[in-house]
């Protein structure tokens, strides 16, 4: 079931963050949502995740949604495996498979506070994916990782997406990340989807790909940044 939003609005006091926004997310499509800081990217994601009771408008979204947050948000008093199985109907073997998929089989007995940032984020992905969601919401899950870990996790996310084929909405402020991962890039500005760009380049992609370089310039301009510095 595709996800449809129409006339979605949200204001915090006088500040309008989402202003009668319309959007459709297609099944199995990897969408990246870009926007300047404070543009309402996370507000939109939280609305889709059902975490914002005050958002108005029509949100037609599947029940099968999973979220990976910016901080991994593992439950600290549950060992890793218990974090994955929390609220899960499926048998434990599925949770073990999910941990194996993100390369954490050997850490299944570990306390979350003993994991590294990359491990915790992988665990958070496993916890989301084990639910076999139709829609996977990723709220800047890579932003706190170091550059090397981020590259590895980008690969992992693409592999997992290719295998499970959920629709993905990745909220990010990193244009390169969006270009490397997504089929479609949205730019949120003034509370609406200001740009909606398809990326057809084959994966794995390289930053130097001429098509992507052109897109990067376009997107940076859309975000109000000139790659050559101030113009």
């Amino acid at each position, binding site marked *: 079931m595709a996800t449809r939003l129409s006339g979605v609005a949200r204001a915090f006091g006088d500040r309008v963050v989402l202003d009668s926004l319309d959007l459709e997310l297609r099944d199995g499509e990897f969408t990246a949502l870009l926007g300047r800081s404070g543009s309402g990217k996370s507000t939109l994601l939280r609305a889709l*995740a059902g975490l914002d009771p005050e958002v108005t408008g029509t949100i037609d979204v599947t029940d099968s949604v999973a979220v990976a947050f910016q901080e991994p948000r593992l439950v600290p008093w549950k060992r890793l495996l218990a974090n994955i199985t929390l609220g899960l109907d499926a048998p434990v073997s599925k949770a073990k498979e999910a941990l194996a998929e993100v390369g954490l089989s050997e850490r299944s007995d570990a306390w979350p*506070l003993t994991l590294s940032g990359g491990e915790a984020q992988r665990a958070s992905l496993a916890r989301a994916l084990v639910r076999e969601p139709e829609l996977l919401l990723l709220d800047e899950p890579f932003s706190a990782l170091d550059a090397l870990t981020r590259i590895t996790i980008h690969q992992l996310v693409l592999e997992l997406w290719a295998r499970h084929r959920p629709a993905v909405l990745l909220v990010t402020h990193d244009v390169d990340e969006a270009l490397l991962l997504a089929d479609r890039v949205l730019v949120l500005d003034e509370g609406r989807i200001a740009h909606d760009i398809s990326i057809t380049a084959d994966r794995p992609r390289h930053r130097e790909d001429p098509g992507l370089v052109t897109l990067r310039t376009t997107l940076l301009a859309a975000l109000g940044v000139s790659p050559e510095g101030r113009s």
Partner: protein
Amino acid sequence: MSVVELARPVEKPRATPKGPRRRVTAWHRWLSPLALLVVWQIASATGLLPERLLAAPAAIASTAVELTQAGTLPTAIGVSLQRVLIGFLVGGAAGIVLALAAGLSRAGENAVDPIMQALRALPFFGLIPLFILWFGIGEEPKILLVALAVSFPLYLNTFSGIRGVDGKLAEVATTLKLSRGQLIRHIVLPGALPQTLVGLRQALGVAWLALIVAEQVNATTGLGYMINDAREFLRTDVIVVGLLVYSALGLATDAIVRLLERRALAWRRGFLA
């Protein structure tokens, strides 16, 4: 030259094994208490410290042995322990149940919290005369005083522990589609546990305090009675034995809670270490 002296420790080989040195330091810490005991013993032996004010350490030790052999001390300890235990269980259960009621719903908070906050302001030792009027001088007023004293720290800490649970984890629970029962069981209660354990230690402290006060006022059995009875006969040795037993029991129950903490909060250990 002071500069050279300051620099000297750095020049020492850093590979000096730490173990033996630390043991030496630990032993040093026993010196001053032992010296105090010796001074105390000498002061008693020379008559500087009369026995009607404070008995000599040696006399206290032999009294402790006598009281134990005669069975007086074990019986008194048994009675007092039983009072603390029952009072602690009753008061602890009440405090935690009320904290759950107040912590898990706004209606519960509005019903319970104002009353608890108002009662908290009452000096509960001041309630002893009323308790005697209501419950006589049997076991009930003592147990209830302990229960009352215990219930407040457990209530306050558990309540604030529940309210202090990370809202981000509650959001995770929503996205994982946990039921309300699952949210309480997996997120709220374990999240409140560290604070509840703080409350538990405070509660044990005041439990012993409340017992001591209750047993001083009116008792025909127990440690407090033993101490009070000894006062009548100027037996300062018995009084000191009683006090030492109180503090040993207090330390022992505190150690139990710390053991409990180590087990229940094992998930924090990697983080704290």
